[in-house]
């Protein structure tokens, strides 16, 4: 019983990062109708960003978010200008095809770049507080992972605030609902796309930094994280960032439960099963509009 509770708790903690990873993907997909299959690679880059800041400059990984997030924002803007900005002008069908091609190409390029810069080894960021644990009865909570969950929740809250209060945040939501109507109200929808993509990349970067401090990073984690994020987006549906976060928690717990019940290898399968069931039973997702 204790073992199960412990595993479910660890699942919940990684679920927060699934939610954060998915929020960025959901934002980009909801606004631009473009599935960025390189989203996991952007997470990976964020992880290495924090890794470099920690090993080269000795920056605490949580403090490094203050640099990783703006850096990822700029990277996102650059990627939009150079690659994805051309896709959104195309009609729906070409848009989907071209964005997939660009995304896969970018994913391969970033993967190769990461191998070149950081080798294929797994890296993580050693901290003085890495082993700290909070004990509740028989269950022990690793403090670093608990902190990543809290930071993820704060970032989701900040995003939600930005989207509901900021002038351009409202413009992003309006563009997601109906880009032509957004044009009619005077919104420069290309700028809304740019901002959404940059914010999505910033969330990916933050998720990557948190993954690297609580777990580890290697050049090949991209695909895995793209898949997790995609499963959560389908599970939660579009339109609510807190819904996406909860979707991440659900996936994390479900993975832990299936690993505990059926054995470790089944951890990866439950997400795909959820994916199929949601698409069949409730295509708009748990919290989707």
């Amino acid at each position: 019983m204790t073992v199960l509770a412990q595993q479910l708790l660890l699942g919940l903690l990684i679920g927060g990062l699934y939610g954060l990873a998915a929020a960025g993907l959901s934002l980009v997909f909801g606004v631009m109708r473009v599935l960025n299959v390189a989203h996991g690679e952007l997470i990976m880059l964020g992880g290495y960003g924090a890794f470099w800041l920690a090993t080269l400059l000795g920056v605490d990984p949580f403090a490094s978010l203050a640099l990783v997030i703006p850096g990822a924002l700029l990277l996102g803007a650059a990627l939009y200008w150079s690659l994805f900005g051309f896709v959104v002008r195309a009609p729906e069908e070409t848009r989907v095809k071209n964005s997939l091609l660009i995304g896969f190409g970018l994913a391969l390029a970033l993967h190769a770049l990461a191998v070149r810069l950081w080798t294929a080894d797994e890296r993580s960021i050693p901290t003085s507080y890495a082993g700290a644990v909070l004990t509740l009865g028989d269950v022990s909570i690793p403090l670093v992972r608990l902190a990543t969950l809290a930071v993820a929740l704060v970032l989701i809250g900040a995003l939600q605030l930005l989207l509901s209060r900021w002038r351009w945040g409202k413009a992003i939501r309006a563009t997601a609902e109906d880009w032509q109507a957004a044009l009619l109200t005077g919104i420069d929808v290309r700028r809304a796309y740019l901002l959404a993509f940059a914010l999505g990349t910033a969330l990916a970067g933050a998720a990557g930094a948190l993954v690297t401090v609580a777990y580890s990073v290697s050049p090949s984690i991209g695909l895995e994280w793209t898949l997790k994020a995609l499963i959560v987006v389908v599970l939660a549906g579009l339109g609510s960032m807190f819904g996406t976060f909860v979707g991440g928690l659900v996936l994390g717990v479900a993975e832990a439960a299936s690993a505990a019940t059926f054995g470790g290898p089944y951890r990866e399968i439950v997400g795909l099963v959820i994916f199929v069931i949601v698409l069949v039973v409730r295509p708009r997702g748990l919290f989707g509009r």
Partner: protein
Amino acid sequence: MLEIRGLEAGYGDVRALSGVTLSIAAGEIVALLGPNGAGKSTLLNCVAGLVTPWTGSIHWDGEDLLALDAHLVVERGVALVPEGRRLFGGMSVQDNLELGAFAPRTWAARRAGLERVYALFPVLAERRRATVQALSGGQQQMVAVGRALMASPRLLMLDEPSLGLAPRLVAAILEVLVAINRAGVAVFLVEQNVPAALSLAHRGYVLEGGRIVGEGTGAALMADAHVRRAYLGPLAVRRP
């Protein structure tokens, strides 16, 4: 003020407008009549910048509107209430209205804009926090008109604002249009309810098969035999 010359437009290979020429002067109410598929919406969408015409020109106060991105057309004072309203359904009434004032010129004055719209449609003030999806069709149409007014337009274009509304609400919406016009805003109205449209319009155009086939004052069009036969029904045709 608005000058459209030789406008041709379509979708793919399908032609929707062939050589449309018309003009709207400051302060006018102009009705655009025509059957379904005549190209009325295409014409409005060309002016608003949502559809790029094949050839022809659209000038607004001497400026070439076709050279502008759609979001800048609103900023110049030309607003469209699109067919089917196209509101942001998941957002509140107030958010929808505020977004109507998104252009920098109007954003700073959005509070005053809101007051004006709430004065015009008091029921929206009561429901300002409600999600647009939760409103009735008539209230949604008020939000659509209000959102366009938030841009402080000098030309307000409306694509079938009465579609699907009860007659009482249609009359209310049209009354508001007259009030808006009295405040100096030109109105370009596509409307299924031809007698109502012509009774308040100064002038009108008849668009059929993508061509302008008739134009005149509201009263002249009301008396026109072709208009009466095509749009007012057999009972309206005067017997010899």
